[in-house]
């Protein structure tokens, strides 16, 4: 018996030729325009997406002269103040969400991966619990001592931010988790530790910069939710964009349609910004394997 050493065997004559010829015969010609079924599905999808927009636009244009619904909406002082308020609340929500979720998701992936299903379940709860239940719970809990948040404007706004953090949890957590999955956080962490870095340095200098695209995705999704949200803002009596839109729809339906399209356009601009930032990203996670 001989152990170790390379296993040697004769190469079948013509083996390479047979592989090459079989590859040539099995290669399918590439369709330039894809399959017809793919086009059918694509057209149905586009129709489903575009028709309501066209209808909304058509409705907004019924107010004469042309585009007056848009100019009226944009000159309405409530539009900019409510949009500004919602935007600031949205930014605070995003910052606090990142501060809360990045270390949590990082720690779960690094140290307690067995708890991931449980954490995912918790982050999905906002899909199960309606916002109206959430806001009533918040009002009941925080409208009396020892934590009377609703007694002041700042307190109510803080409560609104907390509610929005909960509502945006599924989107933010999933974006961050997907970003963490794309890099070998264990090895990067260990590499940083071996170089003397502590936890704060690792998260700020290594993890966060490599999560840039994931954070932007989560941030814009959260921002879109916050800007359009009505229930919580209305019950907490906050001057947010959602209640403004609702108020406008009750009295000036053409302007409401115009504002819907404007907010839709702003959301799309945000999405385009994500794609531009993502494409310009200099960071690529290529761990292991020679190029």
């Amino acid at each position: 018996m001989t152990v170790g050493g390379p296993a040697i065997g004769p190469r079948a004559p013509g083996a390479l030729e047979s592989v090459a010829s079989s590859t040539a015969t099995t290669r399918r010609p590439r369709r330039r325009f894809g399959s017809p079924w793919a086009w059918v599905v694509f057209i149905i999808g586009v129709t489903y997406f575009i028709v309501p927009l066209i209808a909304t636009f058509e409705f907004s244009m019924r107010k004469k002269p042309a585009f007056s619904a848009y100019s009226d909406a944009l000159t309405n002082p409530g539009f900019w103040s409510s949009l500004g308020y919602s935007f600031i609340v949205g930014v605070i929500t995003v910052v606090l969400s990142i501060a809360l979720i990045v270390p949590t998701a990082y720690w779960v992936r690094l140290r307690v991966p067995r708890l991931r299903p449980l954490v995912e379940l918790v982050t999905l709860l906002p899909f199960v619990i309606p916002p109206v239940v959430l806001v009533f719970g918040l009002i009941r809990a925080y409208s009396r001592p020892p934590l009377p948040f609703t007694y002041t404007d700042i307190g109510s706004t803080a409560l609104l931010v907390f509610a929005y953090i909960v509502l945006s949890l599924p989107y933010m957590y999933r974006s961050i988790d997907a970003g963490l999955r794309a890099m070998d956080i264990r090895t990067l962490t260990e590499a940083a530790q071996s170089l003397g870095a502590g936890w704060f340095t690792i998260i700020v200098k290594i993890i966060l910069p490599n999560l840039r695209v994931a954070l932007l995705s989560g941030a814009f999704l959260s921002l879109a939710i916050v800007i359009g949200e009505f229930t919580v803002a209305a019950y907490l009596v906050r001057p947010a964009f959602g209640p403004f839109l609702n108020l406008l729809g009750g009295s000036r339906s053409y302007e409401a349609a115009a504002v819907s399209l404007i907010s839709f356009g702003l959301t799309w601009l945000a999405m385009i910004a994500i794609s531009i930032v993502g494409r310009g990203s200099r960071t690529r996670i290529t761990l292991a394997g020679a190029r």
Partner: protein
Amino acid sequence: MTFLELTGVQKHFGDVAAVLDFNLAAERGEFVSFLGPSGCGKTTTLRMIAGFEIPTAGRITVDGADITRKPPNQRNVGMVFQSYALFPNLTVADNIGFGLKVRGKSSADIRKRVDELLGMINLPDRGNRYPYQLSGGQQQRVALARALAIEPQVLLLDEPLSALDAKIRITLRKEIRAIQRQLGITTVYVTHDQEEALSLSDRVVVMSDGRIEQIGTPFEIYNYPSTTFVASFVGTLNLVDAGVVDAGTGRLSLAGQEVRTAQPVTSAATGDRVTLAVRPEGIDLGEGPEGRNRLRGQVEDINFLGSIVRLRLALGGTADGSAPTTLALDTFNEPHLTLPAVGEQITVSFPPEACFVLGATGGHVAPTPDFAAMEDGATA
């Protein structure tokens, strides 16, 4: 003087014992490799030195200081990973300077050290590149420079060449050894590649199932394996069944032919069956000079392996009618080499020192040879 010392180190993951009773004393500037198959505990041991795992029992000291329970970021230990682990958001220069920045060094000091290391790894003009713009070999060089930048007391390398192609692996292997010698840094290298371990190391620690099988120089490990595992794991080996004719004089019977060992057989008694081990390159074609073991057999197969030719020889059946004993022998492939034909009866020979007996139950080779004397002899 001992610089890195592991004493009675153990690691258990629940009920699973990953490392058992690991003892090692490495000198300052020594290059030690942990060699073994997957799951033998070599990486776990390395991770315990790095501080990523805390030993269940035992003690780890560096230069006399106990670091067993010190957090990894407070040990002055540099680590190179199989997957490079370069920070994708930082340039090559920033990657190399990361550890120095964490230590609060000035920008000028960092720049000077980074330039010095970029020169050492032969990438002086790549400082502004990002890791993804480099090849695998270049990335691993940067990872090495990054680990060396902090001037660690101990350098740890966890299968650093596994993800690279064969040619780059050999080049980088030489570079790693040259840099290690130049800096005189105590280095622990984990690998499952015996060629890597044997060619790089001052000493090799062969591990199996969480235990140390043997610690020795590459010469000792290859030529005088102390256990069946080491004998079978390192290099190519003929393991053949033989009967002990006279344990005191080391006389054995192999397929009805007599074989002598250089040492008396102590792991088995006269009349026992044992496993005889002999490396293919230890066997020569022809009868050779007087005093060598000579065996006759029929050429079964001839394989060209590039620089060597491997012949398989059937020595004939055993007394109980079982399958014939097959022996492999390697000879250098030279243009004027005359090879026998398949089916031809030939004589091969090997010195008694080329064979050793593994116990009937796979025990230790005994007695342990005087390595120093043998190495001197080999050099002479």
